[in-house]
């Protein structure tokens, strides 16, 4: 376990907020500010403003990066560069176009909608990988949740049953992955790939067999949570006043995951099995049982993400409807350095890029927004390449364990 993980498991360390770290964070904020000033509602029309603030951000980043804060320092440098690029581009666009694309409250709400399935998948991945089992089957587990969620909802008429069925289906698929990768010590990547194929086949087969050409029956789905007291609050109102229940559940599960993983005995066990299984076993922790439980929970969480897609958001199922969201969830987990809030932050960032990609075509033609969709993958590639700090996976991840 790294020193950082230890520090944070003891509680928040306020001294980290001073010195290079604070400057680096300020740099990141400045980078975002450089972009923001050129956007509605302020819409600064001169390129000078984002340029100046962006350069400040870069300077702060360099200062911090040379003083031991490599990860955050580089983050500030990148934020500054992006702020300058975005800001200058925005000053070149017409004000009317900007107003069409950048509606902050709509962007905020869309970001949450896109980020939620990623959050569920990333939290699922967190459990599996912290216990030492690579789970690239998240995509398939999500797909199982999406199909069985809507199937059970349609059969029973209750979305609660839908959610439970989704979790059961995702958990079951995860059990297959667990059995092969833990008990039989098969290669975890092979097993995960297989599980993805299986999910694609099973859900596609049942979908055609049960619903054929008519599509899934209409379901009431998971309800929205209405917070009418927020209606008139600036900015927050339009985003939070009416959100799907699953989005709030994802927030709750995020906090729960953090607490379980870093504040409880169970979490310590999971992490120790993922870092050094032999040591864990010598102190009496069952490696197999812990990994089985973690992988199963992983599948259930990913399936919740799928259920959100099918009965929380789209209210229908389509073949391969997850379309890579499980993999973006995995990317968010890696980009967030295998930590719950890191992964959530990454999911928000990736969700924002999707939301922006969705809105850009309104003003700038159909194809342009598509490139934004590559952002999660490019950023993750950069993160694992170690340009911005280094993403460090749990030490024993991917290695099958042989009981003695």
């Amino acid at each position, binding site marked *: 376990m790294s020193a950082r993980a230890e520090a944070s498991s003891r509680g928040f360390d306020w001294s980290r907020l001073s010195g290079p770290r604070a400057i680096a964070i300020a740099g990141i904020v400045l980078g975002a500010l450089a972009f923001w000033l050129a956007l509605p509602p302020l819409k600064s029309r001169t390129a000078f403003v984002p340029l100046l603030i962006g350069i400040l951000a870069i300077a702060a980043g360099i200062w911090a990066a040379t003083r031991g804060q490599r990860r955050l320092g580089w983050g500030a440098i990148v934020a500054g560069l992006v702020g300058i690029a975005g800001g200058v581009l925005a000053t070149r666009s017409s004000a009317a176009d900007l107003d069409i694309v950048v509606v902050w409250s709509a962007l905020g709400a869309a970001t949450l909608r896109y980020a939620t399935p990623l959050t569920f998948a990333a939290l699922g991945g967190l459990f599996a990988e912290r216990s030492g089992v690579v789970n*690239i089957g998240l995509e398939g587990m999500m797909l199982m949740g999406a199909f069985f969620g809507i199937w059970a909802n349609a059969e029973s008429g209750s979305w609660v049953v839908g959610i439970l069925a989704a979790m059961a289906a995702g958990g079951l698929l995860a059990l*297959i992955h667990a059995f092969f990768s833990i008990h039989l010590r098969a290669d975890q990547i092979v*097993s995960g790939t297989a599980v993805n194929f299986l999910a694609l086949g099973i859900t596609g*087969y049942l979908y055609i067999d049960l619903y054929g050409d008519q599509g899934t029956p209409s379901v009431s789905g998971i309800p929205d949570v209405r917070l009418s007291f927020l209606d008139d609050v600036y900015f927050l109102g339009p985003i939070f006043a009416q959100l799907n229940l699953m989005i709030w559940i994802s927030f709750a599960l995020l906090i729960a995951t953090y607490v379980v993983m870093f504040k409880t005995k169970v979490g310590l066990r999971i992490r120790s099995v993922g870092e050094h299984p032999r040591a864990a076993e010598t102190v009496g922790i069952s490696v197999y049982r812990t990994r089985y439980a973690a992988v199963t929970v992983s599948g259930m969480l990913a399936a919740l993400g799928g259920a959100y897609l099918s009965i929380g958001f789209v209210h229908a199922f389509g073949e391969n409807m997850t379309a890579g969201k499980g993999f973006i969830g995995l990317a968010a987990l890696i980009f967030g350095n295998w930590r719950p809030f890191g992964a959530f932050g990454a999911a928000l960032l990736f969700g924002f890029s999707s939301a922006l990609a969705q809105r850009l075509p309104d003003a700038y033609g159909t194809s342009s927004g598509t490139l934004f969709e590559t952002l999660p993958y490019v950023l993750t590639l950069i993160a*694992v390449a*170690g340009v911005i700090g280094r993403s460090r996976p749990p030490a024993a991840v991917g290695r099958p364990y042989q009981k*003695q």
Partner: protein
Amino acid sequence: MSTPAGPALPPAEEGAAPTFAARLALYQRAGGIVTPILTAAFAFFVGGLVVLLTTGKNPLTTYEAIFDGTGLNWLFPWVSGQDRFLASLNLQQTLLLATPLMLTGLAVAFAFRCGMFNIGGQGQYIVGATFAVWVGSSFSELARPLHIALAVVAAAVAGAVWAGIAGLLKATVGAHEVITTIMLNWIAIWVGLYLFGLGGPLQSSTQESVPISNDVVAAAKLPVFWGDPLLQGLHIGLFFALGALVAYWVTLNRTTLGYEVRAVGFNPEAARYGGISVPRSYFLAMAISGLFAGLAGALDILGWQFRIGQADIQVSQIGFIGIAVALLGRNTAVGVFLSAILFGALLQGTSTRNLDPEIFRAELASNLTLIIQGLVVLFVGADVLILYLWQARRKLGLTRRKAATEA
């Protein structure tokens, strides 16, 4: 992870499993050709159960109908007349689909022999196809063999570069190739959707409202050697793929590079100790893998698709099926050839054109193919299952013997 790189290697943990390649070699010696056949048979058996349980139809007639659609009955001398003609048409399609599968299978297999798992075949295939369609639809004044060569080389090199990124990251900073190739897959997919989307740089100049590329010009199309070119006959790309299989075998077994790649695959530490540059092997193995996948994309574009659209990029699975092909073929040239034919036949036999809906719905059958694929990949890990049973038996034998001596 399974094969950590370079000097930063943590001391090998006692009791930790050996590298994947080393285990694979063990199974290869232990299981031979029996386990892949058993695996496939088991997968088909489960597929048959699915048919029986969900639709109540006879799995045997379903499989028979699928088999007839593959055209493999052409090989039976007693099939004659109209049936034989139909079978030849179907067999052409089966081989047409098997051609890229052999190459994407090799793309996975070559990296495997170096101890890496290349999940990026799909992305490398798309990058190759993109370059093939770009070169193939421009330079309209070039002569035929030259144009084909240019497009094929561009695609293969593009695939190699795309995979080379993952190889380079693995070689220099030790970034795990599974993560990087997954990311590169999705970058390739989204960039492809951008390029061929409405208003995209490579979108058709004649059909402005269709998200599709320009057509490959006639001089860049691969000649058809069996069947009617207008009925999508079999193009000479098959020989490219067969050549690649031979090149794969020769490179691995008869060259220094292949020896080094295999040595790194068995045990990177020992290879490094023996003076082999492990990073160089990682990079080259990945780049060569990408070369195969990029070539697959070129052959599909220049051989029979002639254009690529957003929809093709979204539904294409050729690179992913390559994983199943390589695993079932145990990463050998002959094995990859045979399992590519098997999966090509499955794709063809379950296509909507072929399967009579009276017997079985093609949409169901194509999903059945996916289930069979999943089971095959899962139970190639059942090499592990077989080894497990074998070990259990041995353990049982040991205890029995011990009991006997004690008694």
